């Protein structure tokens, strides 16, 4: 196999890491909504925390993206 083709495949495979962030954000917002239905008064107060959690779980997806971009453009 040509090295440039292997590079493209590797970049695609490295993006599998995004699954984790997808599951994480889904769990996070799912729990936020179900908790917000139980106690709607407390929901707006927790929104900054939820956003923070989203940003942190999204960071793992960003690392996968960095690896993919490095495979494509650095090597």
């Amino acid at each position: 196999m040509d090295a440039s083709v292997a590079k493209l495949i590797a970049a695609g495979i490295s993006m599998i890491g995004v699954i984790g962030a997808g599951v994480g954000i889904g769990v996070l917002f799912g729990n936020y909504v179900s908790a917000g239905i139980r106690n709607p008064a407390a929901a707006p107060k927790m929104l900054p925390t939820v956003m923070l959690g989203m940003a942190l779980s999204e960071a793992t997806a960003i690392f996968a993206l960095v690896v993919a971009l490095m495979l494509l453009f650095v090597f």
Partner: protein
Amino acid sequence: MAAQHSPMEQFEIKPIIPLHIGGLDISFTNSALYMVIAIALVTYVMVYSVRGRPLIPGRLQSIAEIIYEFVGEMLESVCGKEGRRYFPFIFTLFMFILACNLLGMLPYSFTVTSHIIITVTMALVVFVGVTAIGFARHGVKFLSIFAPAGVPLWIMPLLVPIEIFSYFVRPVSLSLRLFANMMAGHTMLKVIAGFVIALGAWVGWAPLAFVVVLTGFEIVVAVLQAYIFAILSCVYLNDALHVGH
């Protein structure tokens, strides 16, 4: 016919006024133009709206007041009263990113924040500034953020390297989050818009409807990413202001 246009074409930086001084290319580019427009827009909204100082706020003044209070409350809820001193910086950061993101949603415009050099610059300013504030306020005690209180001693050799790593990876994730979200969103918009032309007049309506929905979603993402950048800056600032909590 549509295949000739790359979805990456929109991110090209083109010089408008070429300037070369001493081997340095400091041309006035379309990126610089949109940054100037963003600053002018923010200045206009914030200065012009409150110029008359009417008792009952008009529409523009209401917008300015709502954004001001929103950022102020966010800063105070994360950092407490001490964070009030850094409000101008956080507010400037939020307004600049918001204006750049929203300007990028106009057709044929350029998204400044879809270039990593812009976001890395802003993230490094936050990172270096927060570290400097931490050392200025607490001195060597600031290093105790790498060793969280109330953790058993035997776990420290494992925890301290992780904490140090996560501290230094902050500017990377902060900048890449904004950059990746803006770039991926705009690329996706252009790819789906390419389907509209490629599928023709009969089937092309389906991707067209999808593009409309996606444009609304991208506006939400533009506001959300500005908010996340600002609130993460507040969280990092809080770590520097209140060590040992």
